[in-house]
């Protein structure tokens, strides 16, 4: 009996742990992080589905945490904003829509094809991010501004609910810590650590 009780409580603890792991846990606010940790935190965010889904390398936006291709063959189209009669804005407005579960934010669009990251390593993504010929001619200052102030970037921490009314998962680093990490990494020269 005791044995069964023990097993039951272990299962209960485990399922509780799984449930709590799925919940968003912001990291402790820490402005004394090393540049390597800052880089790592930036990359954890950039590689999360909330960011990566709109940085495809095949011109097809992705949806959901499992990153399936956008339904109905929606693709990059013209100017990264869909097709002439079916633009991204046919469904995605300036803000999340809780009635339909369609996400929205200012200037909803795919990142330019030169900023496709899907399937790339951390180092390759960082190189594309820093290279003005792929990042739209942005300097380090402009990148910091884009990554810490752009409403579409910051949407990642306010992603709304999905079509089933479930909250979308946010990146594993809080918005505040992401901004600290971005500034720290760029302040210290945006060095890309060698990949282990």
């Amino acid at each position, binding site marked *: 009996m005791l044995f069964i009780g023990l097993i039951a409580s272990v299962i209960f603890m485990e399922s509780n742990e799984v449930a709590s792991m799925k919940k968003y846990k912001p990291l402790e606010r820490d402005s004394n992080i090393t540049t390597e940790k800052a880089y790592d935190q930036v990359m954890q965010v950039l590689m999360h589905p909330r960011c990566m889904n709109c940085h495809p390398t095949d011109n097809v936006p992705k949806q959901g945490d499992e990153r399936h291709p956008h*339904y109905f063959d929606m693709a990059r189209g013209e100017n990264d904003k869909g097709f*002439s*009669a*079916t633009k991204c*804005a*046919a469904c995605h407005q300036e803000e999340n*829509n809780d*009635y*339909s579960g369609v996400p929205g934010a200012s200037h909803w669009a795919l990142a330019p094809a030169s900023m496709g990251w899907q399937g790339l390593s951390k180092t390759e993504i960082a190189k594309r991010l820093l290279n003005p010929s792929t990042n739209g001619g942005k300097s380090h200052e402009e990148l910091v501004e884009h990554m810490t102030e752009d409403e579409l970037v910051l949407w990642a921490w306010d992603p709304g609910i999905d079509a089933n009314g479930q909250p979308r998962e946010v990146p594993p680093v809080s918005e505040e810590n992401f901004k600290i990490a971005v500034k720290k990494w760029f302040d210290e020269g945006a060095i890309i650590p060698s990949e282990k």
Partner: protein
Amino acid sequence: MEISFQINGENRSVQVEDENTPLLWVVRDVLDLKGTKFGCGKAACGACTLHVDGEAVRSCSYAVKFAKGKNIVTIEGLGTPERPHPVQQAWVEEIVPQCGYCQPGFMMATAALLSKNDHPTDEEIDANIINVCRCATYYRMRKAIHRAAELTRETNLQSTENS
């Protein structure tokens, strides 16, 4: 709150408790324009497509507050029985609908496409017209879209000649 816009050429004001109410609900339930259909409510099927300032919009996913001051056209405002829009004319000629439920959405999406491109290829039709028809009238729809494009080009030519 009160929200005003133009719809099918008329200035209208509506009172809504929640400014995020989908435009589709306002169009159907407040303005009693039942041509625009509710299919999925999740921006997935396109049955609710109408035009806002000339752009195709899925109105189940469009908060009515965004319609303030805009120009909306629904299937009721696309043409008249005496002067049908080329899309309506082509749809009649090709006898497109089966049950008909999805058709207003398809027609509004097609009208938006032809206003920007009056000679779409099959590829462009596939990219732009991604609504869903449960009766699978896609084959007749494609024929009708090409016919509507032809009628649109004729209309455009006549208006150029008359100007």
